[in-house]
């Protein structure tokens, strides 16, 4: 059996939404170089809807595939819906990830939440901090 599903390999080989949005309304970055993965999500938001999304990722195959899939899942969606995106949904959409790679899907979920939070902060929009766990909550890296 291959390490990754066909879906993961497809998103790794042909990642969707790679790049930068220069005038992004919200930017979220999670992970760190010591752990070996960093994800950065750029959001363009119109009427509380994600009109465009781009990502940059430093990381392994599943990190790139998870970011690609996550951006596909939230593109064109209202913010309220994007915030409900779970790492489980990303993993399922990729037809699964190896156990030691689930961390990558967690990063994707957190990167999106961080970008939405950034948008809320910049625009003075109130939110419940509990909805935005930061990287420290994840024990995957051990740093």
């Amino acid at each position, binding site marked *: 059996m291959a390490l990754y599903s066909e879906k993961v390999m497809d998103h790794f080989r042909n990642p969707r939404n790679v790049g930068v949005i220069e005038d992004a309304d919200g930017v979220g970055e999670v992970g760190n*170089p010591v752990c070996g993965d*960093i994800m950065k999500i750029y959001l363009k938001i119109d009427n509380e809807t994600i009109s465009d999304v781009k990502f940059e990722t*430093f990381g*392994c195959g599943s990190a790139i595939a998870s970011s690609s899939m996550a951006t596909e899942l939230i593109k064109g969606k209202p913010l309220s819906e994007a915030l409900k995106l779970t790492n489980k949904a990303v993993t399922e959409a990729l037809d699964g990830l190896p156990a030691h790679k689930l961390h990558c899907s967690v990063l994707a979920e957190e990167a999106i939440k961080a970008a939405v939070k950034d948008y809320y902060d910049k625009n003075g929009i109130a939110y419940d901090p509990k909805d935005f766990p930061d990287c420290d909550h994840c024990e995957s890296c051990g740093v």
Partner: protein
Amino acid sequence: MNVYCDNAATTRMSKTAVEAMLPFLYDNFGNPSSLYSIGQRAKEALEAARADVATVINAKPGEIYFTSGGSEADNQAILSAAAQGEKKGKKHIISTAFEHHAVLHTLNALKKRGFEITLLDVHSDGVVTPEQVANAIREDTCLVTIMYANNEIGTIQPIKQIGEICRSKKVLFHTDAVQAAGHVPIDVEDLNVDMLSMSAHKFHGPKGTGALYARKGVILTSLINGGAQENRKRAGTENVAGIVSMAAALKEAAGQIGENGKKPISLRNRLIAGLGEIPYGELNGDADRRLPGNVSFCCEGIEGESLLLMLDDKGISASSGSACTSGSLDPSHVLLAIGRPHEVAHGSLRLTLDADTTEEEIDYVIASVKDVVSYLRNMSPLWRDLVNGKRQHVFAK
């Protein structure tokens, strides 16, 4: 184009090695311990193989013990020295921080049994010095075990000089020569080693076969109890086909060291020069004191697993010391041992050539690695930060 660049992981068996093994799978299938003719023919082949292996490393046939591979040989060497040391109240062992896990994990097990382990630091050039060993030896040191050549970065250690020190201080010296055997000349007398491990599949022999050289007088502990095979030091019916094949492969590989040693070295240097053109990338370990086929690089701003997957799509088989490829959270202990920071160690690439690698293949590999590195850097937020000056580069250029 398909280019296999992972010969340090394993090699394709040579035709000589395959042909050598075949008669012992079918016609001469006998058990060497049996007294009838087909058994005795197998026994003769086994002993001829032992003599051949001994000749290649300038040992005596009685000093060669066949094992299931390099890991078993390492385990047996270390545990044997520890058992003898323990009897004399000597429970200190010296090794290095960048040994293979077959050595490090065995030492860890001994640590739990009350042994004290000194792991020498490795310099940034990937070499330990004889002085470090001399300074670490104590009254209660029962073993020094230092690899001949490192499996990841290919650097060759000053085994002869370390052996001289150990001999003068009357401390047993073992070297894990799994990466070196069949690739560089080995003479156990000249090297002053007491024990040496090797593995057949690293020099175009079969997997599942290895050998431990133990100088006459070294008392081995049997790890597998049972019959009287291998002079009572390794029970179990001998893997005759594998052993015969291993001897043929070793003889062939050793005979080509002069000629082949040259070809991979010039190709290796071509590869090092080509990859050296990648900005903010650096060779791991000393450029000269390394195995003829080993190139190990670290690149800033990318991660090794994605690099390997993309190279695989281009037909290139390589390896990396990134955490993602090791299945753990930390990158390779070898790269950390030579002082590479985590973020750079994640971006490592090991390419190991053999004598059949061609210049055309090398040029294809260089072009492919350059393409993939620049593609991955283009989508890397870490690389963007390095370029924008938001983070500091690790390498000077």
